[in-house]
């Protein structure tokens, strides 16, 4: 499964009721290309095969690879709109998977990936706007998928010049690895005035979000 259906439904209810301006362009790659996204690499020029689109019956994903070329790091990134009202919360939804030619590798020996927010000056930040990352140099040791709802700190609200970035890095083992980004969404969710019938849903969602913020580990191995 590419998506966890219950989350998707809750998210849809909430957002359709209360979301505001925060957006990511072509976050679900519905255009089956990299519209709205930018690519970067330590390799210049970028190796075209490192950035591909996977079309699975009209549902497209972006795939970034390591060790198909001489690149050490390949980056997919997009400047994000952090517009949000005072009473809303910024939720970042991530749905991606990773895979590698090798598995059962020793810790810190595999190719690895990171997901983080970049302030535009090259510094990497986590969801609390501390130095760090949302996913910080995680080993790609076989297939794994990630579906995350991450609450961004209020300090991100209405900031400009920030980028969401996916980076895959080679461990110089010349064995391919990849990260496949299925969808990314950023929503400003009003956290107040939920209709009575929705209140439990909202609370449940908020709780889930809190857990994500503190623990980010809804990882499903397949």
């Amino acid at each position: 499964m590419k998506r966890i259906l219950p989350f998707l439904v809750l998210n849809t209810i909430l957002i359709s009721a209360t979301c505001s301006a925060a957006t990511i362009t072509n976050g679900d790659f519905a255009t089956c290309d990299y519209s709205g996204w930018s690519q970067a690499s330590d390799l210049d020029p970028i190796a075209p095969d490192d950035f591909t689109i996977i079309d699975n019956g009209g549902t497209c994903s972006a795939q970034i690879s390591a060790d198909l070329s001489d690149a050490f790091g390949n980056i997919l990134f997009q400047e994000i709109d952090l517009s949000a009202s005072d009473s809303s919360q910024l939720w970042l939804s991530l749905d991606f998977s990773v895979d590698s030619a090798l598995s059962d590798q020793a810790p810190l020996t595999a190719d690895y990936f990171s997901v983080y927010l970049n302030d535009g000056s090259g510094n990497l930040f986590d969801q609390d706007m501390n130095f760090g990352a949302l996913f910080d140099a995680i080993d790609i040791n076989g297939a794994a998928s990630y579906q995350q709802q991450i609450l961004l700190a209020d300090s991100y609200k209405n900031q400009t010049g920030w980028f969401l970035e996916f980076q895959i890095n080679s461990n110089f083992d010349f064995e391919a690895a990849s990260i496949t980004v299925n969808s990314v969404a950023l929503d400003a969710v009003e956290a107040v005035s939920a209709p009575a019938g929705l209140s439990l849903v909202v609370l449940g969602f908020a709780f889930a979000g809190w857990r994500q913020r503190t623990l980010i580990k809804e990882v499903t191995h397949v």
Partner: protein
Amino acid sequence: MFKFTRLLTLSSFALIASAQPTFAEWQNVDGANITNSRQTFDRVNRQFKVNVTVSNPSNTDLVGPLRLLVDNATLASANMSGVTEDGVPYLSLASGLAAGETRTVQLAFEYARTRLNFDLSLEQDAQEQSDWTLVWQDEFEGSEVDDTKWSFEENCWGGGNNEQQCYTNRAVNSFVENGKLTILAQQETFTGPDNPNGDTSSLATLPYTSARLRTLNKAEWTYGRFEINAKLPAGQGTWPAIWMLPTDYVYGTWAASGEIDIMEAVNLKAQSDAPGAEPGDLEDRTHGTLHYGRIWPGNVSSGTDYAIPSGVNPADGFHEYAIEWEDGEIRWYVDDVHYATQTSDGWYSQYQDEDGVWITGEGSAPFNERFHLLLNVAVGGAWASNVNEKGIDSSVFPQTMEIDYVRVYECSINPSTGQGCATIGENAELVPGNQAPVIRDPSDNVGKGPVFNLFTNSLIEALSFESYNPNGSVSFEVQEDTPDRGNVVVLEQSGSVGNMFFGASPAINMSEFAEYGQLVFDIKAIENGAGSDVLVKFDSGWPAVSDARITPTSAWQTMRLSVPDMLSTGNSLAPGNTADIVDISNPFVVEPTGPITLALDNVRYEFGLDGINEVVVFDDRDHAPFSIGSFVANGSVEIEQVVSADASHGEVKQLTFNTNESVVYFQTQADNGGTTVKLDMNSLDMLEFDILVIEDPRDTRNFVIKMDCGFPCGSGDYPIETPEIGVWKSYQIPLADLISHGGSSLNLATVDTPLVIFPAWGNQQGVVMQVDNVRVVGDGNDDNNPPNEVVIDSDTVLFDDAFAPGWALWDCCGNANVSIVADAERGMVANVDFFGPSPTVSGMQASLPHNLAAAVNGTLEFDFKLASAPNDETAQLLIKFETSNGTFLEMAMSESVEGLAPQVGQWQHFTFNVGELQQRGIDIEKLNLILMFPSWTKAQGAVYQLDNVEVRL
């Protein structure tokens, strides 16, 4: 040690050059956990980044400073603070780690396609001074602002800087939440007191609200360490400040009693205008500054800026801004990086005592008195609106400054001086500051400008009464005249030989007055039945004499004798001789040619341009009373006198701009009170100067000049043709052009700064230029002198689609918007919108008085439409005429020839007879203001339009 009672998680961590204590003893920290991520590629800087997490799992705080050692790295580090004594790179950590605390820092390494390895360890300074004792703090742990510690300023004053915010005490503008104080600035029209005292009898309306908190009368300190951990707002028009003001103002009002700016920033994350900034570089500097000197406008300032390394923007996270203040020295820190020091060698306070005598404050004045803290976010204003992208970007608001804590420490070594606890950084900039102006003691100022007083009530000590009196016919004494005039010298000559003089021993060098000096004195003939003349002289010993002959009258007269003319004329009794101006032994000699009794008073030398047809301001040297100076908002301008590579230019002034905000000027001397010499240049026609641009890296190479008549009186910015780099270019600017120039208020009768010259404000960095041959010249024909009035001798249109030259819309008090707008029927019309509630009057202003004498039988007419009535229905529409010499006449507009009051929505014609204006007290030869406005205090809501303003003969 810094005694932190609570160590909060910082959103970002200091990674930077640190304040290493003078005698640090670094020891390894065994109990800390250190982990790191693997390298990621920083696409912006093409570096590697590594996140390092440092944890303190113990139950004991790890007191800072700490440093993270990065040893055996396989790639060169790119953001280290320094290297240890053993050559190991390290990062300084801003403060300690509380028990259980975890933080992440980010290391940067140079890029190479290889695996990165390194070893990490943590060290603590065991010797870090434990001498700062926490004496006051606010951790903002409650649910509201603690009113035992803070009070609010509530006003729409604008901070004296034309800032655009009203400060309120409302929770929307400042609140405590989640352990932080937030000051929020937002776009919102608000009305409040227009003064800093909160006096509600006078109001202003401004388009933003914010908050300004202070500890005045709740907490004040003299010396100590002040730490404020804060996250700053971003965007064009934001101006956060963490600062201190004196509580008692013992040396006088701002800035004689000082101001300490712990941290200021403007327009963070807007386009940077820092030296060397490229398009796309974002503003990231904070500033530490002192203001001091004399009361405004005699204040000065000094300071420097600081950018957190690795491109970390102060608006993206919390950083600690601090000062250490001790007797005679103040140091600035960001995240414990000591980046600036100022000392009392570079600051001063000068004030006047009860007798008006200027005094320089003793010791480390003014920074030796009680100061209190202030926290605020201003919007726009003189600084923020004039740099970076200019103006205010309303789209960035609301913006917040969040403050995590404010902590104040006392130096336990010596609380009374604050000395002995200093944290000294290795690379801090010693800001040179400013030297106190020399206070001229009259006894030390003999022969010098701007005014060399010889006799006022008494003779100065450097001189003595002397007389050449071979026949005993000369007598003199000091007598009291009228109480207003005080003492005068009464001289009686009963014969025809002899004189009285003021003798100087040693002789005086009076060369400052050689070119533009005047010998000035008051004289009255008490008895002159013989009709005697008087020779007035100065000399260097017979026959080196310069003289002039005058005939006193029975009324007091002020005589002005040109020093250069007298030097030129020389000795009328021994032609071919003249005084040696550098060796004047008798600066004032009075020699009646026959019997006479005289009174003399107020004998002095000063500057004047009577009869001068060419004023040399600079050519090879400064020509008194002119000298060169600069005003620098930040950065620096280096002014040197150098020998030109072009021999024909000799010595020139060379200006090197390491700033974007400065002007260089040639100005007259100032007296002890800072008042400059005002010179009448009405008989002159042209400003001339030469420029050689040596270096100019700017994309837009624009240059500007001005002529000032006692700022803000002046020509306004006058762009000049851009000179080619490397080629001397001569400029001749007609003074008439400077007067008619838009926005000019230049008054040639009171010029004190004949040339202000600068690369355009905001765009100066890197310019190196030379200036030579600065002159103001006349053509000898007074018939074509720049006008000092406009004579109306025919039907004259003052406005029709546009204003006639010299006329502009004007609003006295900042509560009306004035503009030229398009009217569907009439084309362009003048529009005045009284948007604010404060009293104001608006209308038309002329830069020169208009002489309507020829229209005494004519009319002043205009079309007027009251587009919107005042909110107050009782408000009457008034018209007021004012003149440059102070006469004025205010009347109802319904007193026009037509006799009708303005009706809303209708264009109406109004006619006023000029002769009637004259009869009612207006000097019709000096008209310069025509104002239309609703009754005082009742204008708000009114909008009117004006067209076809005309004087008809």
